[in-house]
């Protein structure tokens, strides 16, 4: 079903040309300015990042182009601010009123708010995608996206509910149906992409993930059942160190270790599923006669992921050591004649370290995760029948003038990509 046949037509390579340390400097500058401008710089930051990534992807030797302007994002944001915020305030007041009078109604209001967020988010994301596509050019021809964001939102919600009801088994169908909606509505010039995939093709790779998650969780809970029962029965002992009080025989080591191993396996299988999904989606996507093939490698993706998390852990360790060391330096200082660092100095240094961590964190994410991932995904992508693409005509369509305001306001994860 998912044995992907190789392309028999002449193929053009896709490559990513970008300098990692240039990206590092870019993200550091972005984070710094973001903090200094209390977040207003984020529109410029996002635009610069997108230009870095878009302009680095070269299809058949020619790079993509991102023509979005930060000003468009800024105006989108201001529009949302002027319109949505008063509504939000009225809602807050109403919510506080209900909370004082009727806590049940207040909880309903909270759920209603989450519900609205849930509905608005796919709507906002679909619109944001349209903005990004209409700012993407290749050989001077613009991409586009049609389709109603409202329909997309309802489709998304329905599929999520289905996913919930089936305890996660419907996930491949959810992903496929949404991808189909998006891709069939995506245009390059006047030509639409075509997506021919089905969820069933991927189900065999998703099932093990679900089995491992449920199995692992069940075993872990079983393993913790006795200790928890013991803790509840002897709740008066909670005043002391709880962990030392619960006898270790109650922990079923066998169940816990197998359960834990299953959960780790589930994580790896999830990565594996996503890699397969990417390859499958590429193989069933067409642009006229042009076809796509991806040879994304699971091992490579896992390595990138591991490298990133290891780096994160290392950074966290450094921060903890520094801040802890400062605290100790201050402590031991007060016991002798003069403190090594005054309280203010220690606090300031600790705060500065934390700030550094905040600024460096996104830099590490982009350099150690996104950059190698995009490079690998590009390098393993092939497009066939490129000469056919040359016949595609520019489309003079309506484009959104301002972008992403709603998604930004909802904190929906538009991100760079």
């Amino acid at each position, binding site marked *: 079903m998912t044995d992907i046949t190789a392309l028999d037509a002449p193929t053009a390579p896709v490559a990513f040309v970008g300098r990692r340390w240039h990206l590092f400097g870019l993200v550091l500058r972005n984070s710094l300015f973001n903090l200094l401008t209390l977040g207003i710089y984020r529109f410029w930051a996002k635009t610069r990042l997108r230009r870095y990534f878009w302009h680095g992807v070269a299809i058949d030797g020619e790079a993509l182009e991102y023509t979005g302007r930060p000003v468009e994002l800024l105006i989108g944001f201001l529009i949302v601010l002027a319109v949505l915020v008063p509504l939000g305030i009225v809602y807050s007041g109403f919510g*506080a009123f209900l909370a004082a009078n009727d806590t049940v109604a207040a909880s309903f209001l909270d759920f209603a708010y989450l519900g609205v967020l849930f509905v608005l988010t796919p709507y906002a994301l679909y619109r944001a995608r349209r903005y990004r596509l209409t700012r993407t*050019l290749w050989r001077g*021809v613009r991409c586009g996206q049609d389709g109603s964001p409202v329909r997309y939102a309802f489709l998304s919600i329905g599929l999520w509910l289905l996913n919930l009801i089936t305890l996660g088994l419907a996930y491949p169908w959810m992903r496929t149906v949404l991808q189909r909606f998006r891709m069939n509505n995506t245009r390059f010039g006047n030509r639409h992409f075509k997506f021919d995939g089905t969820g069933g093709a991927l189900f065999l790779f998703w099932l093990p993930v679900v089995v491992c998650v449920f199995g692992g969780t069940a075993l872990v809970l079983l393993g913790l059942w006795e200790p928890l029962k013991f803790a509840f029965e002897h709740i008066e002992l909670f005043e002391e160190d709880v962990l030392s009080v619960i006898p270790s025989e109650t922990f079923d080591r066998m169940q816990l270790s197998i359960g834990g191993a299953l959960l780790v396996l589930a994580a790896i299988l999830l990565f594996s599923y996503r890699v397969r999904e990417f390859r499958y989606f590429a193989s069933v996507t067409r642009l006229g006669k042009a076809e796509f093939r991806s040879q994304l490698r699971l091992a490579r993706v896992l390595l990138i992921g591991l490298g990133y998390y290891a780096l994160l852990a290392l950074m966290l360790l450094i921060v903890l050591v520094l801040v802890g060391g400062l605290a100790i330096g201050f402590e031991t200082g007060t016991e002798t004649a003069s403190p090594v660092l005054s309280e203010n100095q220690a606090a300031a240094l600790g705060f500065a370290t934390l700030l550094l961590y905040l600024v460096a964190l996104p830099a590490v994410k982009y350099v150690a995760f996104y950059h190698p991932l995009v490079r690998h995904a590009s390098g393993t992508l092939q497009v066939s029948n490129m000469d056919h693409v040359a016949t595609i005509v520019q489309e003079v369509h309506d484009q959104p003038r301002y972008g992403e305001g709603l998604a930004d306001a909802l904190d929906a994860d538009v991100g760079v990509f």
Partner: protein
Amino acid sequence: MSEFAASYNDGRTAATRPVRVRIDALGLDIRDEAGAPVARWPAEEVHLVDRPGAGRPIRLMRDFEGGERLLVTDHRALAHLQENCPKLGRMLPGLSRHWRPILMWAAAAAVAVVLIFKVVIPATADFVARAIPAETEEAFGAALAEQVVDFLAARSSSGAAVCTGAAGMAGLAEIVRRLEGPAASHVPITVRVLDLPVVNAFALPGGQILVFRGLIDFAHGPEEVAGVLAHEMAHVVRRHPVQIWVKVAGAGALIGLLVGDVTGGAVIAGVAEIMLRASYSQELERQADAIALDLLAAAEIDAGPLADFFDRLPGIAEELEGILSALSTHPPSPQRSAMIRANGQRLGQALSPEQWRALGRICD
């Protein structure tokens, strides 16, 4: 030699064709392999698409609209381009095309934000505070007070939280009675003294006022305690505790929106929230001070000692200088005592000396 090989996209289709480009002072003369003219780009309309780097061809666009593109692989062309095309390095159209909508929407947003902070949030808070029925507020406040008392009891040295000395309670009740009349509160006033050496007092919703033993010990006379009680009763009457709660929730939501989806945004929002809470609360404290003076005057209690009280009040005012005082929930004490001296009336005693001594022993 200012003629170079290039690839050209006409912006109408995705086709690319090899061309030869001549760069001169007039601009770019683009011709095909046979020499037939393909396009002419005026010099001022030639822009780089992105910064040329090693391994990348030079990408050029014509003006900022349309899809005409030129790809030059020979980097020697760059010098010629820089010489002849004045706007080569300008890769974005600049704000001049957008200033009108930016200004309009920025102004609208700024007006909306200011209106919300200054008018909508306080009005909503006021409305909510008033709309809550007195019985509900009472019940809520009583429950909250119980929780607070339990919480503090765990930290008190004697284990018991509330002080119950009968004579002292009588003295307190006397002061409260004199102030309650003019206050005309919508909920009954309940005052409790907590056995902790803290110099503080606060009002919870529903007329629940908690005073710490430390404050009574710190006071030099009953008029000071009466002044503090009048201040807390002013909070109750104006329903400040509920108002603060609504304002902070609303403002917090607004700040979250403003700061948006940015790493470290939570830190920024948190700090901003603290400052907002402080600013809203300082305003309410000033109101409470003013009303307290009215109550004291109506109860014929001398307001002067209250000013002395603030003068002696230690710590926070001195430690937080300048900008940092904006973080405190109370205005700086010197400001408060000055205001009281300017506006307070010097009238009578709050309690007799024996009653005052009894009050001092309320926790024994």
